[in-house]
């Protein structure tokens, strides 16, 4: 948990540089629009996970209902643009604001709960939102979903997967940069103090609940923005994006990649988005293999992929631990 200033600086600069390089060079291996499509999906998940990690890894909380925030952003944009003719950017901002407000209102009472009780509360909220989205068909189109207009800014429509890729890559870099700054700011330090020894931090005057609420809201807003983008890109959304299954997927990506590791979340999101595409050859055994990979990774690399990888590299390079 404790990192020296120099290593943080390396993380910020070195990590961003590496990520930028990967994002810039990856398309060289993309043979057609399908590759871009999958990549955009991975990028979307990465942005959500970076935000979610602020809550889970740094804030020490858990959310089993984050799919709901994603869905609210998606439906907010969908309804506003396709039913009311609101311009997409305005709709996205409005949805994100509403979701942020909602997260703020929910956060304080919820974050008084601890551990599995908090998990249950977030799960409950997620499920309630999912049920509402499924039932209020005159707004949302019900379980069979609704269509969404494409994203258009000042008359320019974003229509190809390639365009979406570059937009999402830029947004991911922005999200990572924002999160890194947040984590290294006084807010972040307060959080890490709170995570480590809550009572000690409170005794010293750190308002830990204030910061937890902040992380909750920030992670909800990230999810909402990505939800809006997702709706425009896919052109069609259904309530299952708010389901328990989807929320669990997001938490898994964060934990797999490495909690309290921003780049870890990116890695976790990339891998878990690509894995189903790679496992299609296994047919009926896909679920078993996927489950086995999940278990194996967490058993042998309990700190998550990236932290374990970094540890391994450090050991190899003979650096001081």
């Amino acid at each position, binding site marked *: 948990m404790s990192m020296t200033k120099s290593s943080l600086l390396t993380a910020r600069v070195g990590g961003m540089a590496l990520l930028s390089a990967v994002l810039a060079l990856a398309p060289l291996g993309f043979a057609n629009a399908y590759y871009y499509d999958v990549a955009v999906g991975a990028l979307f998940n990465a942005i959500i996970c970076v935000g979610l990690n602020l809550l889970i890894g740094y804030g020490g909380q858990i959310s089993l209902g984050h799919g709901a925030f994603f869905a609210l952003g998606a439906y907010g944009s969908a309804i506003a643009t396709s039913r009311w003719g609101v311009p997409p950017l305005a709709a996205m901002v409005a949805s994100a604001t509403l979701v942020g407000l909602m997260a703020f209102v929910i956060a304080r009472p919820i974050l008084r709960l601890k551990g599995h009780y908090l998990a*249950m*509360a977030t799960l409950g909220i997620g499920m309630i939102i999912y049920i509402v989205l499924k039932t209020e068909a005159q707004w949302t189109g019900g379980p069979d979903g609704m269509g969404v207009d494409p994203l258009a800014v000042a008359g320019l429509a974003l229509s190809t997967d390639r365009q979406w890729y570059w937009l999402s890559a830029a947004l991911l870099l922005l999200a990572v940069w924002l999160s890194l700054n947040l984590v290294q700011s006084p807010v972040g330090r307060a959080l890490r103090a709170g995570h480590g020894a809550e009572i000690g931090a409170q005794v010293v005057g750190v308002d830990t609940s204030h910061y937890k609420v902040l992380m909750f809201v920030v992670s909800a807003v990230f999810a909402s923005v990505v939800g809006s983008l997702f709706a425009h890109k896919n052109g069609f959304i259904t309530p299952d994006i708010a389901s328990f299954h989807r929320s669990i997927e997001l938490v898994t990506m964060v934990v797999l990649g490495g909690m309290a590791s921003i780049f870890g979340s990116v890695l976790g999101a990339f891998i878990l988005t690509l894995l189903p595409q790679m496992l299609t050859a296994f047919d009926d055994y896909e679920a078993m293999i996927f*489950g086995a990979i999940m278990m194996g990774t*967490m058993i042998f690399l*309990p700190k998550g992929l990236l932290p374990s990888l970094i540890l391994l590299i450090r050991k190899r390079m003979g650096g001081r631990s």
Partner: protein
Amino acid sequence: MAELLQYLFAGLTSGAIYALAGLGFAIIYNASHVINFAQGEFIMIGGMATATLTAAGVPLPAAILAAMALTMLVGVALEKFAIEPARNADVVTIIIITIGASIFLRGAAQVVWDKEFHALAPFSGETPIRILGATLMPQSLWVFGVSMAAIAALWWFFNHTLFGKAMLATSFNRLAAQLMGIGVKKVLLVSFALSALLGAVGGIVVTPIAFTNYEAGIMLGLKGFSAAVLGGLGNGMGAVVGGLIVGIAEALGAGYVSSAYKDAIAFVIILFVLFFMPNGLFGKKGVDRV
């Protein structure tokens, strides 16, 4: 009046099912503070194994025993190969492991068996029992009866046998228990076996009512978790009460408010309870060590 009674019967029927699921969560949590999201799959395996064996001609009692044995084996294997190697990991990590296990078990179920729905013949017939204008199926009585018997057996086990008391001791304070010579590893193993057994039994009595298929564990796991948390984690009785409350809330919600929102009503109630009682209905207050 008959209407209210019917809703209560409906709620108690599904509530007893959720209660059995919740109890499984509570037992493992008690021994290890782990929430085992594969609990629903234990229920599914018990039901699927029994249904497919009886469909293949195996007599019911033998099929039940075989299904219970199989599920216990799966539970023990899960503990040995997935939970124990990760015993020092974060709580969230272990949750992810059990979720991975539930995905794995579901995938295995679809390969070993199939994707169809399976039924079991009700144990004592299908003639509804009429009470004051409402009806109840005999199988529901089986579910209540088995839940009550399970609770009684577990109560006796935890409070009147040495090993049961050892398990309780481990849940209170693992280190102290170890210092007192309690084999903590064994406790964990037994807790998983016990939960698996309970899950299997639950699956077997529930299948004649609600059928089963390879995905049946998902919803049951979710409701069981809700029941266990509502009742206060670590409290078996609480899990049962929690399950009954969820079931009754759903039924009354469907009957008097809106059937479209009945599940949402149950969750609202849970949130409400947690707001006023952050450790669930009967949960122990956690102690924060400085």
